[in-house]
């Protein structure tokens, strides 16, 4: 894009954003953004090892390996400051990782992607990210590159009451193959704040991307994520999402468009609602190309006074497509609430094959009693059922995260009983 074109696009986007600043979101509770503050600027880091111990520990819980072992590259953002972006030597020429502002400088063509999968005036949160956003990552897996180790990123907030607003772009070029593990988290002292994140994914012809996101927030934290994914011919996008810690509210409803023929997508979601968390989560898969396949599997657990909304929408616009949606929830307390809203839409594609399965209920007493008859005490019995239930939500989780999940699940099901 020419300089002139860029300036024009920028000012158009800003205008639209300003007009949308009061626009409430379609789902989730409304947040007041007026009192939000930015964070202090931080200097870049030489190495992730130089991070404070408490920060390293917090990021570890979000899947970040600060020793950068078994990782092809890393991105670290603290508050508004992108303090670290590095590709391991062995992966030079295969992947690029930088903060989004640098990427927009370096690649004028990136402006064509910018806000192309998420409308800037979708609601007040997208508008806020455009007007006050700082940072976010640009990751580009180069054509044909196959990364045998995952890329990692961590977006961390270390200041109470502050807000993080990021815009990420992930570009998996033709025939590439990669995994990304990204964690969003707060340092242990931070209980309050907000995170607004816009992410746009472009999965080019024949590419394969697995994106795993771990959310680790705090009791008085609000999160709004806006995600759009475009998948081209013969390409695959797999999205794993894990939320295992309390939060005040999260609302996200990523949209994945299977544009190219034979493209595929799978969303795996594991969420644990606890304390007074208000979770409104789901995914939309639009099956536009011929022979596209989609699958969305969610497992939710709710306890204490949490409220969990599981959404899911499959939209078929082409014949010869197949997709399945599965939402399962387990309630562990009388005060918690759960809703499952699976939707199947077919538009002008009478041969489309869409299905869904939804089930919400308590842990079966009959099953608990059965396990107890084998010598399990009640807590163990409930914990075994709960762990198994949640684990079924994520298949093919990156190895690095499997242990983390298992640990969290076992400590969380102990808490749950």
């Amino acid at each position, binding site marked *: 894009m020419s300089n002139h074109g860029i300036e024009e696009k920028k000012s158009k986007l800003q205008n639209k954003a300003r007009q949308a600043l009061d626009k409430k979101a379609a789902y989730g509770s409304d947040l007041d953004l007026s009192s939000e503050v930015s964070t202090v600027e931080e200097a870049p880091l030489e190495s992730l090892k130089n991070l404070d111990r408490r920060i390293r520990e917090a990021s570890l819980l979000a899947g970040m390996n600060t020793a950068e072992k078994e990782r092809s590259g890393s991105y670290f953002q603290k508050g508004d400051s992108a303090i670290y972006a590095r590709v391991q030597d062995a992966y030079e020429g295969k992947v690029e990782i930088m903060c989004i502002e640098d990427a927009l400088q370096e690649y004028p063509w990136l402006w064509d992607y910018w806000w192309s999968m998420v409308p800037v005036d979708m609601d007040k949160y997208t508008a806020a990210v455009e007007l006050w956003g700082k940072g976010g990552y640009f990751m580009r897996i180069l054509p044909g590159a196959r990364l045998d180790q995952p890329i990692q990123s961590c977006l961390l907030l270390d200041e109470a009451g502050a807000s993080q607003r990021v815009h990420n772009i992930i570009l998996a070029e033709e025939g590439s193959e990669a995994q990304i593990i990204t964690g969003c988290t707060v340092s242990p002292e931070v209980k309050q704040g907000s995170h607004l994140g816009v992410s746009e994914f472009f999965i080019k012809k024949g590419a394969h991307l697995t994106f795993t996101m771990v959310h680790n927030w705090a009791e008085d934290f609000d999160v709004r994520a806006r995600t759009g994914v475009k998948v081209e011919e013969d390409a695959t996008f797999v999205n794993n999402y894990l939320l295992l810690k309390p939060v005040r509210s999260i609302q996200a409803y990523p949209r994945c468009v299977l544009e190219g023929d034979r493209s595929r997508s799978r969303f795996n979601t594991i969420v644990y609602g606890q304390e007074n968390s208000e979770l409104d989560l789901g995914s939309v898969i639009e099956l536009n190309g011929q022979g596209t396949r989609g699958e969305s599997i969610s497992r939710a657990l709710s306890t204490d006074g949490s409220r969990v909304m599981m959404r899911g929408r499959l939209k078929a616009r082409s014949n010869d497509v197949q997709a399945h949606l599965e939402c399962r929830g387990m309630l562990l307390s009388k005060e918690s609430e759960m809703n499952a809203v699976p939707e199947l839409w077919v538009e002008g594609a009478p041969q489309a094959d869409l299905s869904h399965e939804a089930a919400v209920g308590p842990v079966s007493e*009959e099953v608990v009693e*059965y396990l107890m*008859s084998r*010598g399990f005490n009640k807590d163990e019995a409930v914990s075994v059922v709960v*762990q198994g239930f949640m684990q079924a939500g994520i298949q093919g989780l990156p190895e690095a995260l499997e242990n983390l999940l298992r640990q969290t699940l076992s400590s969380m099901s102990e808490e749950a009983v």
Partner: protein
Amino acid sequence: MLQLRDVTVKVEGEVILKNINLVIPRGETHILLGPNGSGKTTLLKAIMGMGGAEVEGEILLDGQNIADLSVDERARLGMGIALQKSPAVPEISLQEILQITGEKHGTDEMEEKIESLNCGYLLERGLNENFSGGEMKRSELLQLLVQDPKVVLVDEPESGVDLDNIVIIGEALKRLLKSPREIEKKRAALVITHTGHIMDYLNADRGYVLVRGSITCAGNPRDLFEEVNQNGFEGCLECQITE
């Protein structure tokens, strides 16, 4: 030894079993016959503390009244049950439950036990999830073998099982009931059955007939079985075999 003294069982306020008395010494296998709906399953579950039953009277395990203990406490004291119908538990695989049960009860020869009940191919499956009738029975008995209980309660091990599998199940029961040589390790067993097939393996010592919630006959199991085959259960209401 398992002893029931004047056991009355109510389920959801309704009396299902009345004044049940029985004694099963160690090393003996007793069988329980009775028509559908007579209360056999309810009795077995009540002995184990399952099924939300309200129990009056005493259930004594080696002299200790266990009637107020929870299901898992009874299991840890050495009681074990193979259910007529067990619930599907897709959240855990057969392998996992065997492993955990084995750790709890200190079992060895796991491989061999799995082999003997032909359950190898079921290990990765969700527990009881879409198991066929025969697979369900084999997996229940396998779990009991691994649990290695002192008192074995088995509810209709042969129902829905074909002739080849009856052999497998019969052998497993034989092993479960009669294996230990030392008297202090010998087991007491109560087995519910409707058919003679399984009796060939059990070598049962005593039988009971339960009709409408009461034990109407007790005696030699083969005689009882013959009697029921000839005159039906109603005949047992006034039969003469009872000592």
